[in-house]
């Protein structure tokens, strides 16, 4: 029996990709991403700069702040040392490509690392998604592009995405400069191999079998002869996630759907409301 949940090992893996001194960018509706930034800054990467949607530079002195569902913006502003604009976020990205870390959540990702947040199906009539926001802008620009997929399912890990938003390596062309694409799912960590331009397993999470991955992926994932296992979260990491950064378990919302999700959400909101306003 594992002493951690899927979201916890995912957040730990995400956090460990952040190098000390990196600039971590927060996008729309990605609580697991912001938790991983706080975790990295509280452990191995204290010099991480965190930029949020307010275009602000969030800073904190000692213990990491607790994330919020209801007061996301308020918490960010409380710790801001600078307030910018979304234009400025892009100015930082363009200037500091080598140092940027950003975790995107794709609706679909394919064997070549292309991603899709536009629509599912052969045309727009089946399922129109909210849109990719900034994913397509930077996916092909970053030397290191990161995706996280809380639900490792066949409908997420598809052979070919229905619509290319985030550019992977489907086509061998002039735009395929050398760059790394990493994918962190509830089952393991993956990357796109440069030679074959295909998705390959980098490490499998403790307690997960290679069959679990095969059963939940629409294409063949490349594997090494001896599969590496993901290092589990440390005691400190778990404690920080559970007690300091996300005691309300907001991260769990990334896995839920339907009525279960709505109830979890209302439950968190009520708790926050009673504590704060």
């Amino acid at each position, binding site marked *: 029996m594992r002493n951690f949940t899927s979201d916890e090992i995912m957040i730990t893996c995400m956090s460990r990709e952040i190098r000390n001194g990196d600039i971590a960018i927060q996008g729309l509706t990605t609580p697991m991403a912001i938790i991983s930034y706080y975790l990295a800054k509280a452990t191995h990467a204290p010099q991480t700069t965190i930029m949020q949607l307010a275009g602000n530079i969030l800073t904190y002195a000692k213990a990491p702040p607790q994330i919020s569902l209801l007061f996301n913006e308020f918490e960010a502003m409380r710790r801001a040392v600078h307030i910018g604009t979304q234009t400025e976020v*892009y100015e930082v990205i363009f200037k500091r490509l080598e140092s940027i870390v950003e975790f995107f959540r794709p609706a679909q990702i394919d064997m070549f690392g292309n991603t899709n947040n536009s629509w599912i199906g052969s045309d727009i009539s089946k399922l129109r998604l909210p849109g*990719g926001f900034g994913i397509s802008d930077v996916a092909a620009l970053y030397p290191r592009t990161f995706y996280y997929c809380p639900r490792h399912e066949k409908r997420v890990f598809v052979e070919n995405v229905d619509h290319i938003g985030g550019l992977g390596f489907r086509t061998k062309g002039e735009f395929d400069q050398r760059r790394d694409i990493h994918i962190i799912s509830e089952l393991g960590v993956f990357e796109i191999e440069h030679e074959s331009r295909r998705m390959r397993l980098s490490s499998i999470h403790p307690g997960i079998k290679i069959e679990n991955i095969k059963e939940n992926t629409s294409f063949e994932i490349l594997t090494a002869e001896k599969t590496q296992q993901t290092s589990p979260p440390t005691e400190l990491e778990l404690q920080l996630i559970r007690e300091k950064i996300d005691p309300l378990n907001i991260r769990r919302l990334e896995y839920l759907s339907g009525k279960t999700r709505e109830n979890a959400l209302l439950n968190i909101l009520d708790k926050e409301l009673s504590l704060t306003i």
Partner: protein
Amino acid sequence: MQNKVVKINEACQTIQNGETVAIGGLTIHRKPMSFIHELIRSGKKELHLLTLGGSIDVDLLIAAGSIDRIDAAYVGLEILGFAPNFRKAVEGRVIEFNEHTEYSIMAGLEANLIEAEFIPSKLLIGTDILKSLNYKTFRSPITDDLLVAYPRICPDVAIIHVQRCDEYGNCQINGINAIDLLLAKSSRRVIVTTEKILPTEDFMSVPSSTNLPSTFVDTVVESPFGAHPTSCFPHYTYDLWHLLHYMESSKKGKTENYIKQHITDLDSFEGYLNLVKDDVKRVTVREP
């Protein structure tokens, strides 16, 4: 500088059917909701909407039949999920949706600011997003590289909700700023709705906080709580309960009822605020 303060219905009358209207704020943050209500109440039609990230603002206008085209990089209710009427109208091809990215919107707007005829860039080459936008590619006169010509985007009018401004339209936008300065600078006209109008003297003590100056603003409308149920830091946060209620009514195909009850049956946004006063109270932050 001249006094630019008018009532919300006067400001709304300046907007013609068919115009391109840029909406400030981002998703469920600082949306000019009182003005959105007024657009619906006054029966505007065939508007083209432009916004970086839309939520209930876009969804309501679609449900009310006010718009026939929307340009945005995202339309959804963030952590709450899909925007129900947006999804239905796009899937059913009732409205045209140009899916942008943050960059394609910012580049198009930015071109106005630097008097560029377009913005030539390599971004988005190879993606299906660019194919759908149908932007021209060409060879750089300097390097011969293949570039995209991002055309200028010039909205007819931008609607921006701010925390405070003076009667001339000097505004202090707080919290998530998104691309509101860019929208104001690149739109032909700018209508600002504001939580409060303050004397100019109040701005002279903190001139560095005035991030949208009067030179870009044409019209000022005072509208307290004008962003509800979206947020307006530091006065109130987004009303996720109300937004869930909105989504619930939409799921049952009854956005019509919501609109009737909350907008068209009422004389003004004050009527709406009175109707949802418990909701508003719940998300209002006590003064420190």
